[in-house]
Each structure stands twice: as structure tokens, then as C-alpha cells.
């Protein structure tokens, strides 16, 4: 049988990027398909990463650029997989490149179009905390550096077209269908963040100073909407007291998901330390059920958060948050299960560490690929112990959070990406010998 010495990677977050690089460096032609305008995924949105406290995008950007310029990688951004046929060693894939309405080969990324665009839209990349224009680059380090017109919000005023000196804007652009032939497929579609509107007792969406952890990451980020300054959404004041709530929508059989999302305790400790670094006199509390700081170096880091930074850990899951209508301050009512007292705490800002869930379109994609998902929409490995990255379809493997919370954090995703690349190489190399 003829075996295609090529692979398809779906999703260009850190897992998909690493899988592509490991495949491409192995000599395998790799198509990296990403549905949004830029590669980078969730890691690009984060502020800092534990334990080096390096800014996340700073260590990710070189890898993004490496993907962009790698001779063995074909980057297909703003594209979606529509059909997959065939079997291991010989898949045929139909990919649709959605129209950006900006010609990638002409756009120089100067941003004049966005300066003139009259439409302002909440920026998805900032988890809705900042704004972008209808013609936009999601973030400054976006790869490729090509603007995209969001036609759902565009007024068709044509201003961008007339100011573009490179003549790159083309509002008549049509979708392009591509057919790819690949030997193996890596699925790396990542996660969505649970928006806890249903947990009404916490007032998310109603109280301005209650936000998700992803929104906080964008506030902390130097390239975020506030340029790295933490401000309360209600009045722009710097919060003096902050409470992190764990297990919002995870380990929760009523409103959310029964599983543990694996990473929230760890990033909450990191964010708590960052808050303390930003403002040492602030009070930072972490409300937890079990403090799950497992994994290399995390327990030691949590100890430092306690001892050196004075972060306070309270073993409790608050029952209710109330807002003072005047000051917009928040009062948490909770039972401290260690001192067995019911009490309250007033804070300036509440951060909800919410469940991570599969991408909303993960089931649809699984159908196209012919692979199984669990009741939540995560991919199911064919043998969760022995072959943890394989799906039921030979030749299709997964890595990163789309495999479920079994993934965990960035190093886990990077390792899974390597494992996925190894599985694809095994198939391609074994059959081509």
C-alpha cells in the first residue's frame, strides 16, 4: 500500500503546535489546521506560567513563528475540516479555508484598516474584557500577521478597503476548498471555559466584579485590555482583596461537570502569587474543597504561596455571594470546614475558577472523523491505560485537553503532543518500510 508521508493536525494551541513541530522535524509533511485567525490557542491568552513565571506568550511566540516558517509545515488558519475518508496511512481530508476578506499574500499587517474601522466588538481573545474592531488582528503576536474581517459585525462601509495601502482587503473573497492526502491525523482542539451563568448564587454576569479566571488572566497580561493593570470592572479601582473560588462547575453534579478539571488549583495558586507580587499589601484568599496542587514542583510552590506570600487558603465552597449595590463590593458566605464556623468575608473582586469543557464543536468534528466522544464531548482513548492517545480509528490520535481533563497542564499537553507525533510516525514509518 502507498503510505502518505504526511499528517494533519487539527487545532493549533500548544498541543497542536508541538505535535506539528515534532512531526515536521521528523521529516513528515504536516498540515496544521486552525479554525480561528491565528495560531497560539489558550496558552497565548495566559499571562505568566509557573514556575519560571515567564510570560506565556513570550515562550510560546518562538514556537508559533517556528511553525510559520517550517518548510515541512503548511499552516491553514481560519480553516475547518469538513470531510475525512480513508484509513490509516491513506486519509483524504477536505478542508475549507474561510474567507478572511483580506488577502493573506498582500496584507502587511500595518493595522490602518482597524484604526479606521468604526465598529467595536468585544474581543474573544480577551474573554470579552477588551474590545476589537470588525477588522482585526486578535492579538499583537498573532501568526500569521494577517487581518480578518468579521462579517457578522461588519457594516459593509468599505472604509477598510479604501484606506488599505496594500490593496489587501477583498470583501468579495470566497471560501476555498482544499483536498489533502495524509497518513495520520492528530486531533488537538483544546477546551472551552465554562461560563457559570447557571450558578445564580455566585452572580456571574450580574455582579460586575465577579469574573472567570480566564478573564483575570487577560487583565494580568501585559498585552491585555488594561495593559497588565488589575482593575475592578465596576469602577477601575485596583482591588485590595481578592477571593478565588475553586470547583465552580467542576466536581459539581448539579450545575456543571462531575470531573475535576485538573488545573484550577494550580493556576489559582499562581495567580494568587501574581496578585501578591503586583500589590503585596493585598489580601488574597483561595477557597477550595481539596487543594489539588499535584505535579512536579506544585506542592512546593503552594507552600511558598502560603509561607512567603501569605496567601490564605480556606477549605470551603462558599454558598452565596452578595453584592453591595453602592460600592459593588462582594460578600461571600461560607462555612470554614476546618474551624467548623459559618462566617462571611467581604472582598473587592471574586475570581471563579470554572470547569474546562470540550470545544462546543468537538462532537461535530468527532463525527466527521468517525471517532467516539464521551457524554461530555471529550475524545475517548481506545485503551485509556495502554494506548492513552489513540482513538478507536487507527491512524487518528489525540493530544491536549480535547482528550479530557486527563491532560492537565502545559507540560502534559506537550508530552501528549510528542506521544501523538510518535504514534503517527510509527504508523507512517512502519508501513512505508
Amino acid at each position: 500500500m502507498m503510505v502518505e508521508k504526511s499528517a494533519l493536525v487539527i487545532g493549533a494551541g500548544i498541543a497542536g503546535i508541538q505535535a506539528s513541530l515534532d512531526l515536521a522535524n521528523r521529516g513528515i509533511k504536516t498540515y496544521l489546521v486552525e479554525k480561528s485567525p491565528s495560531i497560539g490557542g489558550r496558552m497565548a491568552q495566559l499571562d505568566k506560567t509557573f514556575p519560571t513565571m515567564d510570560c506565556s506568550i513570550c515562550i510560546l511566540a518562538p514556537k508559533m513563528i517556528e511553525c510559520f516558517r517550517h518548510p515541512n509545515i503548511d499552516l491553514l488558519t481560519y480553516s475547518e475540516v469538513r470531510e475525512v475518508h480513508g484509513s490509516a496511512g491513506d486519509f483524504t481530508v477536505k478542508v475549507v479555508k474561510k474567507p478572511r476578506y483580506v488577502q493573506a499574500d498582500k496584507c502587511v499587517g500595518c493595522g490602518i484598516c482597524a484604526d479606521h474601522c468604526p465598529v467595536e466588538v468585544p474581543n474573544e481573545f480577551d474573554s470579552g474584557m477588551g474590545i476589537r474592531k470588525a477588522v482585526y488582528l486578535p492579538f499583537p503576536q498573532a501568526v500569521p500577521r494577517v487581518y480578518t474581517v468579521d462579517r457578522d459585525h461588519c457594516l459593509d462601509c468599505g472604509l477598510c478597503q479604501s484606506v488599505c495601502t496594500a490593496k489587501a482587503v477583498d470583501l468579495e473573497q470566497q471560501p476555498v476548498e482544499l483536498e489533502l492526502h495524509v497518513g495520520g491525523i492528530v486531533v488537538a482542539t483544546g477546551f472551552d471555559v465554562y461560563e457559570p451563568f447557571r450558578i445564580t448564587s455566585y452572580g456571574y454576569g450580574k455582579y460586575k466584579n465577579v469574573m472567570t479566571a480566564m478573564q483575570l488572566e487577560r487583565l494580568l497580561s501585559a498585552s491585555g485590555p488594561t495593559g497588565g493593570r488589575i482593575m475592578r470592572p465596576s469602577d477601575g479601582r485596583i482591588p485590595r482583596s481578592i477571593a478565588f473560588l475553586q470547583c465552580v462547575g467542576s466536581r459539581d453534579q448539579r450545575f456543571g461537570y462531575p470531573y475535576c478539571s485538573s488545573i484550577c488549583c494550580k493556576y489559582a495558586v499562581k495567580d494568587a502569587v501574581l496578585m501578591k507580587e503586583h500589590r503585596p499589601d493585598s489580601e488574597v484568599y483561595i477557597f477550595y474543597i481539596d487543594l489539588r496542587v499535584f505535579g512536579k514542583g506544585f506542592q512546593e510552590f503552594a507552600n511558598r504561596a502560603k509561607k512567603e506570600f501569605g496567601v490564605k487558603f480556606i477549605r470551603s465552597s462558599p454558598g452565596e455571594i452578595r453584592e453591595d449595590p453602592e460600592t459593588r463590593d462582594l460578600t461571600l458566605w461560607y462555612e470554614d470546614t476546618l474551624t467548623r464556623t459559618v462566617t462571611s468575608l467581604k472582598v473587592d473582586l471574586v475570581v471563579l475558577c470554572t470547569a474546562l469543557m470540550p470545544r462546543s464543536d468537538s462532537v461535530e468534528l468527532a463525527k466527521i472523523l468517525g471517532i467516539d466522544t464521551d457524554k461530555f464531548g471529550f475524545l475517548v482513548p481506545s485503551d485509556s491505560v495502554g494506548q492513552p492517545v489513540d482513538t478507536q480509528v487507527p491512524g487518528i490520535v489525540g493530544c491536549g485537553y480535547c482528550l479530557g481533563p486527563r491532560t492537565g497542564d502545559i507540560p502534559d499537553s506537550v508530552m501528549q503532543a510528542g506521544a501523538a507525533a510518535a504514534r503517527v510516525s510509527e504508523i507512517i514509518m512502519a508501513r512505508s518500510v
Partner: protein
Amino acid sequence: MCHCGINIGGVVNVPEVVEYAKTLPNVVWTEGNLYTCSEAGLSSIRDSIKKHGLNRVIVASCTPRTHEPLFRATCEEAGLNKYLFEMANIREQCSWVHSHEPEEATAKAKGIVRMAVARARWLEPQDEPEVDVSDSAMVIGGGVSGLTAAVTLANQGFKVHLVEKEPQLGGITRRLGKIYPTLQDSSEIIDPLIKTTTSNENIQVYTSATLKDVSGYVGNFKVTLKKGTEDMKLDVGTIVLASGALNYEPPKGSFQYGVLGGVVTQLQLEEMLARGEVAEPERVLMIQCVGSRTGEVWTYELSDMSQSFAARLLSKILGVKKEEGWPYCSKICCMNAIKNAIRIKELWPKAHVDILFSDLRTYKEYEDFYRKARALEVKFIRYIREIPPEITEAPNKKLNVTAYDTLAGVETEFLCDLVVLSTPLCPSKEDVMLARMLKVPLGPDGFFMEAHPKLRPVDCQSDGIFIAGTACGPKDIPESIISAKAAAARASILMANRKLRTEALTADVNTDLCIGCGLCEELCPYGAHKIQNGKSTTIAALCRGCGVCAADCPRHAITMRHYSDRQILAQVEAMMA
């Protein structure tokens, strides 16, 4: 000059530094970028090199550790030798450490840029040595990780030498009875893996064999194995380190371990269950985090308690000896305890099982496993680590355990048949020798250290050596398999390419000056210097560019390529200027 968003631009007045740089001799083009590492910044570097005929490029931004390769590659794309690139770190060494002194930080940034320009004048183009890479690998350790790595590499056509010090393959997995959360026999995983390994013609297995010596460098490691009285020589291109971890054994007397008969570790319990040595118990008590998470201060949790209550606890706490063990969380013990609790409940439904824990870390979908145990009426009791349970002998070979239940706020007594200690995976003492032989570092927790904790979790800091499984820290079986496959993926990249370019920052010996005293050979931590025919020579692929030889050579006969005295002195002079 990079603003790095506000990382630099929020402190240092970047436009002012840009203007200043224009005044420096030989500088013909300067610009500021929001992010120099973005595609826009990089294409501007490429364009400027061509447009202005630049023969040196300096980026003042962040750390060369993460970004130098990117900027060097950009220079190469524009036809400039990458060693003609210089980086000035005005973030870590300036804006971050002087975030409250913007004026001084701006002045310092100017100084750092001035130094970089001074050095750049003396930079010379360098050729990177190319080495051949042997397409065979050595895997150290025949547990689940080593076996997986070996099979993954062999399936891609590489020759693998698998070295195991024990007479049998299978590692710690073979000793486990069942595996969580599937509760399948461990033999279902390990036996097929051993069979695939031993029947694969690309894999040569050496059992009861140890490493005697490893020399050489990436692509060309020379290994000496010792099997019995016999020495064997191997030449391999890459090494996968899968030497595993040990199950920690508490010191005698800790929790009455080794003193009272019914106190065992989880691993011992598994082996006893497998051999059918456990009689139907009335009650089994498990204690989590014995010998792990020892660095924690839990008294903080008590700060809100009423004075007298806290004082009573505190007096108990102060009376307790400092716990022996490891500061990290071993990550697998919670699921392991639940697994054994479920097994006992399934074997003897009437038996009581209690688990004393401080945080139950059933991460991922293991939460289901926790629920399953609770449905089987396994009791979970949260104790305080600083008030360890007291274990005493009771009549009829039973054990009496007193533990403080934080949630109920009372001390509770348990009359048990067995007390099972959940002890962590821990590094082996032999790792120190192995680390020395391979010239790879161990981390503060005693496990082998990865090159970057986030982005290079299976690479060692030494090129050509990769870490798989629990040698790098506690992992369960699926996680070990994943890391082993990842390590194999990284090793296969090197071996498939067959050739490798290494950094040109190496020692260069001026043989006219060299007197062959051999000091460099003696000092070099990497064995990169050899005295041949009365003169020192450098093996470029071994040299890591540390400069020890150049600093100590009594004749000043050794120069570091890309870090010559002239370049460094020019920087120092610029700093003083």
C-alpha cells in the same frame, strides 16, 4: 528595540533609548517595535538587513535563552551569518528588576545597549560543526516507560539497546496487582509489552546489566555495560533515561512501621493481596501522604481557631518529631489507596475501610473513582498532618489508631486489623551516580531535571538524552506511557536526520602558544580537551562553551569562539564609558 508590550515599554523609555542608540558609532539603523518577536518585527529585521546592508544586528529585548534562536534564524534568512547577531537583555536585567525606577532603568538600558554595540563590532561569522548521528538508541530501564520507549523507536526502524539492572523486565508495574482506574490486572499491560519488546528484532535486551561508563556526545555516545563479569561496548546516537523511581519506605518506627506487624505500605498490601496472604479484615485504615508533602506548614489553617483549642493542638504539634520524607506530592497515592480500598470492599463487602487524607487529589476523571469508593462505603476522614495518628497495639493482633477528624472536630478511635501507609514514589540513590555518568542535572526534588519545565518536559539539558516516566517525577502508568512515547518522538527526530549542527561557541586552541601542559584536559567537565602530540585539541561536539579552559590556560592559548577576550573587554570598556 522591543517594548514587549508594557513589559519593557511600561518602565524603560524605549523611544529615548532608540534615539540614544542612533548616536552610537557604526549604528546606521534603529527602530522600536511593540513586539520584535512578532512576524512584523521579524520581517522588519529581514528588510532592514537587505535595505541598509547591515552586517551586525542587535535586538534589545528579553532573554537570549528563549528568543536568540528566533532572531538568529531571522538574520540567516536575510543572508547574515547568525553569529553576527547580538542580544541585549533590557527586560530581565533591567525593566523587571527596576520596575519602580523608570529613569534609572532607562539609563541602564542605554548602558546595556552601548555594551551590546561594543561587542557586536568584534563579532565574527562562525561555522557550526556538523556531526553524524548514529541511528541506534540506548534505553536505560526496563519498566513500563523503558519498554514503551524501546518499542516506539523500534517500530520506526531504529535499533534499540534496552538495559535493565534487574534479571526481569517489567519494573514496578510487575509488582502491582491491579491498575487504577480500570482495575485490570497489571499483567494485562506489562506482559504484552515485554513480549513485543523481546520479540522485536530491532531491540536488543540486556537484563542484569548495569552502566559502567558513558562517554561521547549527542549522536555518538560510547557506552560500556557491565553484565556479570563481562564488559560490553555500545555505540548509540541517543539515550532515553527511564530508570524509574522507588517506592518510599518509611523509617522504622514511623507510624509503627517495622515495629507492629499490621503496619504495611500500599505496595506491600498489593503484594500480600496478590499472594492471598490477607485474611478477611474487620477494618483497614489507610493513611495518606506518609513521607510526602513534608514541607508544609498546616498550622496556618489553625490561625482562625479559638485560642484554647489552637493552644491544645499546638502543644501536640510541637511534641511531634520532624517528619522524614519528601516535600512533593507524589500524585498517584490517592488513586492507589482508593484502588486498594475498592479491592478490599469487593473481596470482603463487610470489611470497613477508612482513609485518612489531607487533600484528596483524585484529579481528572479519577473523581468518578473516588465516587465509586464512597458508594462502596469507604470512609474518608480529613486529618491534620501535624497531629499524626497514634498507633498502639491492641489485643488479638489488632491495632488501635487514634486520629483527629477535622471535619467532625473530634478525636476518633479505630480498632483495625491493618494500617496501610500511602508512601510516595521517590528518587533512587543510584540516580546520583547515573546523573554524574550522563552529565545531566537532578532537580531539587531529587528526580532528573527536564530542560524546560513547560515546553521541554522530556528533554534533558544535555543534547541527545531524553527522560521518560517516573525518573523525572511521580507519574501513573498512562502518564508514564505518554512521556515515554514523547521521549521516543524527540529521540527519533535526531536519529532520522542523521546529521546535526552544534553550537559554534567552542574552545579554539592556538597551537603556537599551547605548551601541552594538560591543564585544560584536567579541568574540562565535558572531556572536550585531549592532548595529542604535545598540543591540546578540542572535540567540538563535546565542548559546551563554558570557558573554564580559556580562563585557566596559563599561556592564554585558548580562545572561546563567539566570546573572545576582545569582545568581552569591549563590553566592559563600554560599560565604564
